C-alpha cells in the first residue's frame, strides 16, 4: 500500500518537474523517464506481491469535501490490475522519450504532465474505496487521456477523434454515476465497504444496477456496440500513449465492472449469459472489423475490442460458476479473464509500440504501402512477431494460457450441462475457436504484409532500425509474454487470489486446484519440449547444409518474365476471402473499376469498412438529439444579464421550495 502511494508521489513529482523543465527539452524528458521507471519498478513489485499474497490493506485520510471520503485500499483484485499500469506505463514512458524526441518541447512537456497524471489517476481508480474518490479519479483519467489523444491537435481528424472520445467517456460516466447512486441507496453511504455490506436491493434493482455497470464501464472497456471511440482515439494518439490507453486504460472499465460485481454480491445466472453474449459479439465483430482495416493502429484498436470480448467470456463463465455453485469453474473463469487482462496489456502494448516504430521509421501507417521491413528493422520485426503470435493465442506465449483457461471453463460448464445452459459453453468454445482462427489470419496479414516481401511503395525515407530506447521497452514486454506463456502454473497462482475474491471468496477444493495446476504444468512441459525440438531441428538443418551449395535467386515467378513489387499480395487481397464471407455483415463498401475491353488500361479496387454501429446507430441518434436540442437554443442567447437572471430565478425557486418543505 505504502509502496503504491509512494510510486504515485514519484509520478506526480516527475510529471510536474517535466512540465516545469519543459523549456529544457532533454532534461524534461530524462526526468519524466526516470520518474516513470522508478515508480514503475516500485509499483510493479508492490502489486505483484499484493496479488500473490492476496492480503487486503486500506488507508483512510482526512477529506475536505462534504461527501465521500479519502478511503483507499489494496486487495488482490486491484493488485492484478495495477501490475500492467505500472509495468506498461513505465516502459511506454521510456519509449515515449525517443518517440517524441523531435516534437515541440513545450507541447511535449505538457504531454508528460498529462501522461503521468493519467498513470496516477489510473492507480487511484484502482485503489479507491469510495465512490466519490473513484469518480474523481475516473474523471481525471478521462481528461488526461483526452489531453494525450489530442497531442497533435493541429490535425483535424485528431481533434474529431478526441471529441468523440470525450463524449463517449462521459456518457459512460453518467451510467457509472447512476450505478453508484443505486448501489449506495440502501446503505446511504458512498463507501465501497458499506455498499458491499448491504445493497439491500431487490432482484430487479440488482439487475438494473448490473446493466448500468455493464454500459457505463463497458463504454470505457470497449464492448460492442459502445466501442466506437476506440478505433478513432487510439490511432490519433502518439504510439506510447496508444499502448497505455489500449493496453491498460480500457482495462479500468473491466476493473470497474468486476468491482461492481463484487459490490453487488451473488449474481443471477442471466448476468453470466449476458456477459458471454457480449463477449462473443465483441470478440467476433472486433476481429472481423480488424481484418478489414488498412491502418495498422486502427486495426490494433479493433483487436482490443476482440480481446475485451475474450475477457468478457471469462467473466461470464465465472459468473455462471458462482451462480451454480461450482467454485472451480468460477475460479478458472475469473482467473482466465484476469490473466487475459494482464496478457492483453503486455502484447497489445508491444504491438502498439512496434507499430509506432514502423510509423516513426517510414512515415506511414497504411499496411499496404509497407513491405520487407524485417530486413531493415530486424529487431523491431522479431519483437512485433512475438506480439503477433501472442495475440493470436499461440503457444508458447501468454495469450494461449489465458485463452486455455477460458476454454477449460467452458468445458467444465459443458460437463455440468443442466445446471449451466449448454448454449453458453457452446458459444464460448465455438466463438473462441473462430476468434482464434481469425486473429491468426489477421496477424499473419499484418506481419506478413508489413515486414515480409518487398517494399510495396518506395519509402519517403529509408527505414532505419529504431534506437535502444524504443527497442528495450518492446523487449521487456516481449520477454514478459514469453515468461507468462512458459510459466503458466505461476501465472495462474498469481491471479488466483483475485479470482477467488471476485467469485465471492470461497476457495475451490485444494485437490481440484492441484489438478488444474497439474494441467498447466503439462502445458509448460509440452512447450518446453517444443522449444527443445525447434532448437534440435534447426541445428540439424544447419549441419545438413554446412558443406552444400546454398544459392540465392529470385522468387519463383511461375514463368512470368517481368514481375514487379506492385504485383505482390496486399493486405486487402489477403483478407479478401474472409471479407467476401463476412463483408455483408460488416457493411464493407467496394469501389471497383474493373479492367474492360480487349486492351484494358487501368483498373482499381478499393475496399472500405466503416463502423456500422457508428454509421447506423450513433450518428443518426446524435443528429436527432442535436435537432431536439436546437429547439432549446433560444435559452442560450449570449447576453450576460439573461444568464444572471437564470441564476437568480433558480435560487429563488430553491428558496421557496425549501421554505415550503421545511
Amino acid at each position, binding site marked *: 500500500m505504502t509502496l503504491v502511494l509512494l510510486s504515485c508521489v514519484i509520478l506526480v513529482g516527475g510529471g510536474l518537474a517535466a512540465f516545469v523543465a519543459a523549456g529544457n527539452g532533454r532534461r524534461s524528458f530524462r526526468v519524466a523517464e526516470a520518474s516513470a521507471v522508478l515508480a514503475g519498478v516500485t509499483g510493479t513489485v508492490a502489486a505483484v506481491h499484493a496479488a500473490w499474497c492476496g492480503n487486503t490493506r486500506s488507508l483512510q485520510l482526512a477529506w475536505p469535501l462534504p461527501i465521500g471520503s479519502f478511503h483507499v485500499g489494496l486487495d488482490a483484485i486491484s493488485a492484478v490490475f495495477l501490475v500492467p499500469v505500472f509495468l506498461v506505463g513505465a516502459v511506454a514512458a521510456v519509449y515515449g522519450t525517443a518517440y517524441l524526441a523531435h516534437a515541440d518541447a513545450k507541447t511535449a512537456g505538457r504531454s508528460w504532465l498529462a501522461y503521468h497524471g493519467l498513470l496516477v489517476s489510473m492507480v487511484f481508480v484502482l485503489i479507491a474505496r469510495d465512490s466519490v474518490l473513484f469518480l474523481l479519479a475516473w474523471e481525471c483519467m478521462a481528461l488526461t487521456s483526452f489531453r494525450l489523444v489530442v497531442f497533435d491537435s493541429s490535425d483535424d481528424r485528431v481533434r474529431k477523434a478526441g471529441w468523440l472520445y470525450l463524449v463517449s467517456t462521459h456518457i459512460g460516466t453518467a451510467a457509472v454515476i447512476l450505478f453508484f447512486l443505486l448501489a449506495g441507496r440502501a446503505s446511504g453511504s458512498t463507501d465501497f465497504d458499506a455498499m458491499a455490506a448491504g445493497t439491500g436491493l431487490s432482484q430487479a434493482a440488482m439487475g438494473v444496477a448490473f446493466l448500468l455497470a455493464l454500459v457505463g464501464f463497458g463504454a470505457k472497456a470497449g464492448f460492442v456496440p459502445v466501442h466506437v471511440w476506440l478505433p478513432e482515439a487510439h490511432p490519433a494518439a502518439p504510439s506510447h500513449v496508444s499502448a497505455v490507453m489500449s493496453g491498460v486504460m480500457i482495462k479500468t472499465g473491466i476493473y470497474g465492472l468486476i468491482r461492481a460485481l463484487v459490490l453487488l454480491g451473488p449474481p443471477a445466472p442471466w448476468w453470466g449469459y449476458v456477459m458471454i453474449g457480449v463477449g462473443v459479439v465483441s470478440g467476433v465483430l472486433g476481429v472481423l472489423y480488424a481484418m478489414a482495416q488498412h491502418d495498422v493502429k486502427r486495426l490494433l484498436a479493433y483487436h482490443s475490442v476482440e480481446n475485451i470480448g475474450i475477457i468478457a467470456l471469462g467473466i461470464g463463465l465465472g459468473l455462471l460458476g458462482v451462480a451454480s455453485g461450482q467454485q472451480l469453474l468460477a475460479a478458472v473463469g475469473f482467473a482466465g479473464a484476469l490473466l487475459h487482462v494482464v496478457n492483453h496489456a503486455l502484447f497489445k502494448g508491444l504491438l502498439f509500440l512496434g507499430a509506432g516504430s514502423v510509423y516513426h521509421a517510414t512515415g506511414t501507417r497504411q499496411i499496404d504501402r509497407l513491405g*520487407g521491413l*524485417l530486413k531493415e528493422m*530486424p529487431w523491431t520485426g522479431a519483437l512485433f512477431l512475438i506480439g503477433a503470435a501472442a495475440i493470436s493465442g*499461440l503457444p508458447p506465449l501468454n495469450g*494461449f494460457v489465458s485463452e486455455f483457461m477460458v*476454454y*477449460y471453463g467452458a*468445458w467444465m460448464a*459443458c460437463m455440468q*450441462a*443442466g445446471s449451466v445452459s449448454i448454449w453458453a459453453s*457452446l458459444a464460448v*468454445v*465455438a466463438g*473462441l*475457436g473462430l476468434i*482464434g*482462427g481469425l486473429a*491468426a*489470419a489477421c496477424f*499473419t496479414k499484418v*506481419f*506478413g504484409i508489413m515486414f*515480409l*516481401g*518487398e517494399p510495396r511503395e518506395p519509402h519517403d525515407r529509408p527505414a532505419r532500425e529504431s534506437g535502444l530506447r524504443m527497442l528495450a521497452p518492446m523487449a521487456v514486454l516481449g520477454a514478459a509474454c514469453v515468461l507468462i506463456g512458459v510459466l503458466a502454473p505461476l501465472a495462474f497462482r498469481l491471479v488466483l487470489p483475485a479470482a477467488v475474491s471476485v467469485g465471492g471468496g470461497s476457495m475451490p477444493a485444494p485437490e481440484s486446484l492441484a*489438478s488444474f495446476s497439474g*494441467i498447466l*504444468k*503439462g*502445458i509448460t*512441459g*509440452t512447450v518446453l*519440449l*517444443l522449444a527443445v*525440438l*525447434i532448437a534440435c*531441428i*534447426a541445428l540439424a*538443418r544447419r549441419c545438413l*547444409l554446412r558443406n*552444400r*551449395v*546454398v*544459392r*540465392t*535467386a*529470385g*522468387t*519463383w515467378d511461375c514463368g512470368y518474365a517481368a514481375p514487379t513489387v506492385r504485383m*505482390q*499480395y496486399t493486405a486487402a*487481397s*489477403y*483478407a*479478401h*476471402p*474472409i471479407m*467476401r*464471407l463476412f463483408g455483408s455483415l460488416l457493411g464493407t463498401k467496394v469501389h471497383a473499376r474493373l479492367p474492360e475491353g480487349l486492351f484494358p488500361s487501368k483498373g482499381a479496387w478499393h475496399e472500405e469498412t466503416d463502423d456500422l454501429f457508428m454509421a447506423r446507430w450513433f450518428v443518426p441518434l446524435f443528429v436527432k438529439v442535436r435537432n431536439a436540442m436546437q429547439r432549446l437554443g433560444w435559452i442560450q442567447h449570449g447576453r450576460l444579464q439573461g444568464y444572471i437572471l437564470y441564476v437568480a430565478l433558480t435560487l429563488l425557486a430553491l428558496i421557496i421550495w425549501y421554505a415550503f418543505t421545511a
Partner: protein
Amino acid sequence: MKLMSIAHLFLALLAAPLLLGVLNRCKAVFAGRKGQPLCQLYFDVWKLLRKGAVYSRTTTWLVAAGPVIGLAVVLTGLVLTPAGQTPALIRFSGDLILLAYVLGLMRFFTVLAALDTGSSFEGMGASREVFYAALAEPAFLTGLAALSCLAGEFSMSALSGTASLQTWSASGPVYLLVLAAWFVVMLAENARVPFDDPNTHLELTMIHEVMVLDHGGPDFAVIQYAASLKLWIYGSLLVGMMFPFPSGSPVLASLVFAGGMVLVAVLIGVLESVTARLRIVRTPELLLGAFALSLVALLLAVSAGGAHVG
C-alpha cells in the same frame, strides 16, 4: 504402458509416409494406373535431404524457420496424440486444445514463410489457408466438446479407445456426426480434395503446395515429412476416438488401430478419386456444414449424457 506409447510414437515416425503411399496407390487403382511405389515419399524425402538449397533474395530467416517450426510442432503433436488404446506420452485434461493451438503455430509460420517470398501466388495460398483454418477450428472444437460430454472426459488419451460396439449402439448418431465433421476438418487441414488438390499443376488453384513453392532441398524434405505426420495425427484422432476397439488385448487393439489408419487413407483415396475440387467460394459452406454437424452432435451428446448422469 509407457513402452507401448514409445513404440507407437516410433511407428508413427516410420509409417506416416506410408499412409500417403497407400492413399496414392488407392487413387491409382481407381484411375486404372499402376501408380507410384508405396514408399515413394521415403525416396523423395531421402533425395531432398541430400540436396543443397536455393533461397529467394527477397526472403529472411522466416523462410527457413517455417519448416523447422512445422516439424517441431508435429513431433510435439505426436507426443500429445494417443494411438487407439495406447495413451500419449504427455496427457492431461484439455490436451486437445493445446494440440489444436500448436498446430495453429505450425500454420502461422508456414503462412509467414510463404509471405516471406513476396510472391503473389504464395500470398494467395496463404490467404486461403488461414481462411479455411478459421472456419475449421469451431467445427473441430465443437466436435471434441460433443465427444468429451459423451464420455465425461476431457483428455484425448482418456477419450481414445473408449469407443466400442456397445457405445456405438448407445450413441451411434453422435459418433457418426462427429466423424463426418472431423473428416471434413481433416481434409481441409491436410490440403486434400475437395479443398485443395495435391496433384494440381496450376499455381493459381493450389493452397498448400503453392505456399511451399520456394522451399527446396532439406527444407522441402522436412515439409513433406511434417505434412505426412500431420495427416497421421488427424487420422489417429479420428480412429482413436471413434473406432470401436476390442477390450482386453493391447496387441489386438494396436492391430485394430493400424487397420483403422489404413482405412482412413483408403477412404481419402476413394474420395479424391470420385470427387473434384470444390470452387473456392463454395468451400466455406462445407466447413460451416461440418460445424453444424458438430453442433447437432453436441446437443445429442448433452441430452444423452444428462440421462446418463442424472
